[in-house]
C-alpha cells in the first residue's frame, strides 16, 4: 500500500482544565458520561486512527457532538490534541513550532468553513486573495490570481462586492475560491455545504466534484449528511461520540454496516442514488465468443440459458437470444454473427448510479449488460438483484 498523505495515529482529545489527568480514565475505557461526571472533563476524540490517501475525497461523517469538527481542526492544529500524532507527508505536524506551523497552514492546507468565515470588511476579491496576502504576495499578483479563481467558481462580476451583498451559496463559492487560491494540496471542508439550501447544496457538490476531477486535491470533507457523504466520498469514516465506528468505501458502508448505529444511519439512505451499478452487478457470464451462428448457438446451450452476450476482441458487441439464433441457423449456420441478429438491450456503464438505470432495467426481460468505457463486458445486472438491493 502506498504511504498515505495524511495519517492520524492514536489521536485523543480531552477538553477540560487538566486533560492529562483524565486521560488514564479514557484509556481504561471509562464511558464518556462517567468521566464528565467524575472529573468534569469532556472526551472529544478517542483513539482515532485514519489514513487518508493523496487525491481522495475523504468524508468524515457524524452527528453533532460526534467530534467531527474537532477532528478536522486537529489537522491544521486549530486545536491541539491531548495525545496522538498527525503525520502529513511524512512530517509530524505536532512537532512544528509556531513559525513552521504558520508556513504549513499557508502552503499545505486550506480550509472552508460552515458559516463561510469570510471577512466582512474585505471585498470578494480581497477575501479570495486573503491566503496570498498572508503569504506576503504583492498586490498585483495576488489580485490577478484571485481573479482567475473567482472566474472558476463562477462569480465573475462580483469581485468588488462585499460578502454581505452575496447570497449564501455565492458566499461559500468565495470561501471555496479562497481555499483554492493558495494552491494548497489539502483542502479541509468543515460542513462546507451544510448551511446552504438543498438545491444550492447539490449544485455546490457538483461543482466540487467537477473541480476535483481537474485539480486532484486531497479533500477532507466533514458532513452530518450521509447522502452528501455517499455522493462525494471516495472513502467515508463514521464518528460517534468521538470514536471511529466504521471506515470504508461508500458502498461498503451502505451494504455492510459495521454496527447498529451505522445501520440505523444508512437505513434511510436513498440507495438508488448512492450506489452504482458496479457495486451490485453480477460477474460476467453468458459470454458468447464464437464467430458463427451455429457455434454461438452451441455455446449458448452449454450455459443452459436462452440468451448470451456476444463479445469479440474489440469488446462487447450485442445481446443474442436463443430463439433468434435458432431461426438464423435454419438459413445458414456457418454465417458470421451480424448486427441484425442483436436484440435491443441497452448496455449500462458500471459507474452509473442505480437510479438512472431503473427504467431500463424494468423495461428489459433480461439482465442488462454492464460495459465499461473501453467497451469490455464487466458483468450483468439482473432485475432481481437490483430489486433486492433497493428493497433492503
Amino acid at each position, binding site marked *: 500500500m502506498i504511504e498515505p498523505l495524511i495519517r492520524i495515529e492514536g489521536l485523543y482529545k480531552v477538553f477540560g482544565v487538566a486533560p492529562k489527568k483524565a486521560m488514564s480514565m479514557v484509556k481504561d475505557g471509562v464511558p464518556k458520561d462517567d468521566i464528565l461526571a467524575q472529573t468534569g472533563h469532556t472526551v472529544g476524540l478517542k483513539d482515532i486512527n485514519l489514513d487518508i490517501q493523496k487525491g481522495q475525497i475523504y468524508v468524515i461523517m457524524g452527528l453533532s457532538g460526534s467530534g467531527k469538527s474537532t477532528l478536522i481542526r486537529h489537522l491544521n492544529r*486549530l486545536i491541539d490534541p491531548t495525545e496522538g500524532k498527525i503525520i502529513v507527508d511524512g512530517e509530524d505536524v505536532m512537532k512544528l513550532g509556531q513559525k513552521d506551523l504558520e508556513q504549513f497552514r499557508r502552503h499545505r492546507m486550506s480550509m472552508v*468553513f460552515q458559516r463561510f468565515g469570510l*471577512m466582512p470588511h474585505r471585498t470578494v476579491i480581497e477575501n479570495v486573495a486573503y491566503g496570498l496576502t*498572508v*503569504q506576503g504576495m504583492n498586490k498585483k499578483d495576488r489580485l490577478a490570481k484571485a481573479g482567475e479563481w473567482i472566474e472558476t467558481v463562477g462569480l465573475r462580476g462580483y469581485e468588488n462586492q462585499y460578502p*454581505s451583498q452575496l447570497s449564501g451559496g455565492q458566499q461559500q463559492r468565495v470561501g471555496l475560491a479562497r481555499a483554492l487560491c493558495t494552491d494548497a494540496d489539502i483542502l479541509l471542508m468543515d460542513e462546507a455545504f451544510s448551511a446552504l439550501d438543498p438545491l444550492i447544496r447539490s449544485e455546490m457538490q457538483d461543482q466540487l466534484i467537477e473541480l476535483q476531477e481537474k485539480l486532484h486535491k486531497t479533500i477532507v470533507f466533514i458532513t452530518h449528511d450521509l447522502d452528501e457523504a455517499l455522493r462525494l466520498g471516495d472513502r467515508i469514516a463514521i464518528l460517534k461520540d468521538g470514536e471511529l465506528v466504521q471506515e470504508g468505501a461508500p458502498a461498503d458502508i451502505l451494504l455492510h454496516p459495521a454496527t447498529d448505529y451505522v445501520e440505523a444511519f444508512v437505513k434511510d439512505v436513498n440507495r438508488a442514488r448512492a450506489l452504482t451499478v458496479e457495486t451490485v452487478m453480477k460477474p460476467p457470464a453468458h459470454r458468447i465468443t464464437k464467430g458463427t451462428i451455429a457455434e454461438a448457438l452451441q455455446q449458448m446451450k452449454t450455459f443452459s440459458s436462452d440468451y448470451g452476450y456476444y463479445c469479440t476482441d474489440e469488446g462487447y458487441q450485442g445481446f443474442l437470444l436463443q430463439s433468434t439464433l435458432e431461426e438464423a441457423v435454419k438459413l445458414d449456420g456457418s454465417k458470421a454473427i451480424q448486427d441484425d441478429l442483436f436484440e435491443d438491450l441497452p448496455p449500462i456503464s458500471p459507474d452509473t448510479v442505480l437510479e438512472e438505470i431503473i427504467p431500463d432495467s424494468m423495461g428489459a426481460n433480461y439482465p442488462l449488460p454492464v460495459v465499461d468505457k473501453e467497451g469490455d463486458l464487466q458483468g450483468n445486472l439482473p432485475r432481481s438483484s437490483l430489486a433486492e438491493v433497493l428493497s433492503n
Partner: protein
Amino acid sequence: MSKGNWLTEFPQMDRSDLLVIRKGLDGAYKEFSRSYGEIIENLFEPLLRFLVWFEKLLVNSPWWLIIAVICSIVYSATRSVKLTVGVLIAFFLIGYFGMWENTMRTLSIIFVCTMISIAMGIPIGIMMSRSNRMQSIITPMLDIMQTMPAFVYLIPVVMLLGIGKVPGVIAVVIYAIPPVIRLTNLGIRLVDKEVLEAATAYGANSTQRLFGVQLPLALPTIMAGINQTIMMALAMVVIASMIGVKGLGQPVLKSITNQYFTLGLFNGLAIVALAIVFDRVSQAYGKRTQKHMERAQ
C-alpha cells in the same frame, strides 16, 4: 476603641489612629512630590510645549482659516453637506458671541486629550482582550477612574505638578480614557470566532490577525468608545478649569461664583455645540467606514 455600646454605635476606629493614617499618607505623598515632582514635571515638558504650541496655533491662526480647515475635515470625514453647513453655522455663532478664543483653547485641549486617550487606550484595550487575567485586573481600575469624583484625583495631580495645562490634561485623560479601553476590549472580544479561525487557518500570525481582522472588525465598537471619550473629555473641561485649564470652562466657573447666568449659558451652549459637532462627525465617520455592512441583516 470607643466606650459606647457596639450595638448602638458603629465600632469605629479611634480618631487619633485615623489622624495618624491621614498624616502618614499625606506626609509621604508630600515627601514624594517634593523629591520627584520636578523630575516628573520635566518628563511632561514635551507635552506642555506641544500643548502651548498647538493652542497658540489655533488661537493665532485667522478665524476663517480655522473654520475652513474644520469644515473640510468634517466634509471629508462624513461626506455630508448638511453636517458641514451645521458645523459652519455653529462656529460662526460661537465667534459672533465672542467665545472664539476660549473655544479654540478648549478645542486644542480636547484634541490633545483625545489623542492621548486613543494612543494609550487602544493598546491597553488590546492587551485586555488578549488575556482574561489582564481584563480582571484592569476592569476594577477603570471602574475606579470612572466613579471616583474628579475632584479627588485632582488633588494629588495638583500636589505633584501644581496647576496648569499638564495637570489638566492628566485629569481629563484619567476621566475620559475608560470608554475607549473598555470598548476596544469588547470590540475585539466580539469579533466573529469563525472569521478569526479562518485567518488562523490560512496561516496568519498574531500581528496579521490583529491588524487584518480584529481591529478592522472591532472598529465600529472602538469608534463608539472614542466618541464616548470625547464626550467625557468635554464634560471634564469645566472641572479642569478649576486647576487652571483655560478655555470655555473658566467663564462657566466664573459665572457660577458670580452668578452670571447669561455668561454661563452662552459658554455652556458653546460646549454643547462642540460636543454635538464631535459626536455627529465621529459617528458619521464611523458609519461611513462600515459601508460593507449595508446589506447585512
